[in-house]
């Protein structure tokens, strides 16, 4: 650090800052500190997520009942179109449960990503008035969707209990959903950063998600559809993370799913969860000091 001779007694601002231990106010904290801060804000995350759910249904007469009705209505429409009209249900036992489990699991990822993409840009006023680790916002949205999924899973459980009966393998749903939550958090963080700086992403997202929906084996069985194609094509499609998560939940809940299992689903699920969570976090954190900019 240099000081010009005539001002030897007057340190520059940066030197003064260093001398008294001042740090940059908009600087990015170290990743470990960032994670600690995020953990320290967990009650805010939960509280904010709950508040948003409450606010979302505040104007509706049926209120929070829609949390249950919305997935059910979605499932009914898809059943009508794919189950009855297009007859994708051939050779799939218990098509209703097959379809509904796929929809609920995919909706979790779909809504997390869709909401998460706008999470930063929609909360600019909050970001510009309060200091908190910005990852709090995508986190809160994913937690919101997770609680919604919990309710949907309850409905699915009732349905399967009635049609097939309860089974110990149901316990595998918990690790399955844990892995999917990890994946969703990572993916949402990436999309939140992209959405914060490139407004057009929010416009493109619905189309990307819809395409993804159709290739994830929600309405039809992927192995059955590709039965007469070379095996490696099925292996390739099985790398789709959404397909993997849907598959492991179906394996857990539906005893009749054996014939339509995707290869290596659990391994793929674990790998995607780790890659997404770690990669997504680092990617989001690297831009932490820039989110306030318009």
């Amino acid at each position, binding site marked *: 650090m240099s000081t010009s001779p005539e001002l030897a007694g007057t340190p520059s601002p940066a030197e003064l800052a260093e001398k008294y231990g001042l740090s*940059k106010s908009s600087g990015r904290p170290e990743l470990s500190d960032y994670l600690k801060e995020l953990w320290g804000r967990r009650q805010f995350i939960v509280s904010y997520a709950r508040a948003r759910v409450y606010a979302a249904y505040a104007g509706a007469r049926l209120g929070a009942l829609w949390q249950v009705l919305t997935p059910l209505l979605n499932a009914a429409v898809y059943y009508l179109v794919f189950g009855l009209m297009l007859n994708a249900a051939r050779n799939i036992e218990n098509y209703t449960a097959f379809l509904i489990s796929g929809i609920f699991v995919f909706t979790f990822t779909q809504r997390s990503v869709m909401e998460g993409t706008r999470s930063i840009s929609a909360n600019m006023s909050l970001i510009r008035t309060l200091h908190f680790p910005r990852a709090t916002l995508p986190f809160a949205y994913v937690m919101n969707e997770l609680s919604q999924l919990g309710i949907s899973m309850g409905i699915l459980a009732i349905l399967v209990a009635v049609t097939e009966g309860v089974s110990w393998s149901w316990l595998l749903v918990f690790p399955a959903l844990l892995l999917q939550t990890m994946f969703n958090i990572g993916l949402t963080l990436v999309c939140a950063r992209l959405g914060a700086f490139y407004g057009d992403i929010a416009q493109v997202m619905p189309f990307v998600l819809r395409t993804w929906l159709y290739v994830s084996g929600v309405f039809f069985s992927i192995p059955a559809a590709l039965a007469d194609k070379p095996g490696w094509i099925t292996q390739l499609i099985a790398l789709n993370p959404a397909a993997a998560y849907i598959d492991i939940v179906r394996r857990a809940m539906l005893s009749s799913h054996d014939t339509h299992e995707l290869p290596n689903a659990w391994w793929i699920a674990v790998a995607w969860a780790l890659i997404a969570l770690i990669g997504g976090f680092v990617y989001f954190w690297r831009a932490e000091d820039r989110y306030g900019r318009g």
Partner: protein
Amino acid sequence: MAETNPAVNPADTPAATPAGTAAPETAPEAVEKVPTVIADEVHIVYKVMAGSGGKGTAASALSRLVRRQERPTLREVHAVRGVSITAYKGDAIGLIGRNGSGKSTLLKAIAGLLPPASGSVYTSGRPSLLGVNAALMQDLTGDRNVVLGCLAMGMTPEEIEQKYDEIVDFAGVDEFIDLPMRTYSSGMAARLRFAIGSARTHDILLIDEALATGDADFRAKSEKKIKDLRDEAGTVFLVSHSLDVVTDTCNRAIWLDKGSLKMDGEAKEVVDAYLTESTRKK
């Protein structure tokens, strides 16, 4: 970004601010002045979409894309131009200037909420803006908003439990606390927001005007509360149009004009100069 700046820093040798740069070898004053906020050649630029400027149709957008033109309506607003300030522990600094001179923007940059385009702001600890409006939700009840607002400010659930009654009492909204905030009158809402925002102490406190809302009784209460917070805090920045508040509560004032630092010195001096300038133009 100018990290080392050997040239003269205007803030270190202003008209009347005591030059408190610590030189341990000569210490004529008994108390060494500790800097808590240092702004170094801060520039802040907003990118805004202006209103008119050609047709906003898809056809015109496509032709612009083909001809590789930037959106004509995208404009850069240079809100803060090269401001450098050094604030010390114990200072209460008023930021004055005309509307749009960059005071609130500078405050947000000091708080670390708006990153500067160039230059840096160094602070000891975390400065906080007094004001928690953005975290509150109209559909929630008052008591849920108190909890949410306090959590947003970083208080722990135990602290919130302790302070809850105090906050509700201060705001005077006891009977309405379980009703959604959208049903509050604007005065009640403002009082509750202020009560929540002033619930915790801050090392570096940044206050952006609009304190003078509410009836006379509440104004008196809030001004007293600000004084208390000021005494507890190390350093206070206050943006205000009410110049007597500035001369009453601040020891130092900074005059911003169109984003540049015009004067930095004793509160009374700067306010007088500002008043002279403003009234002279008319």
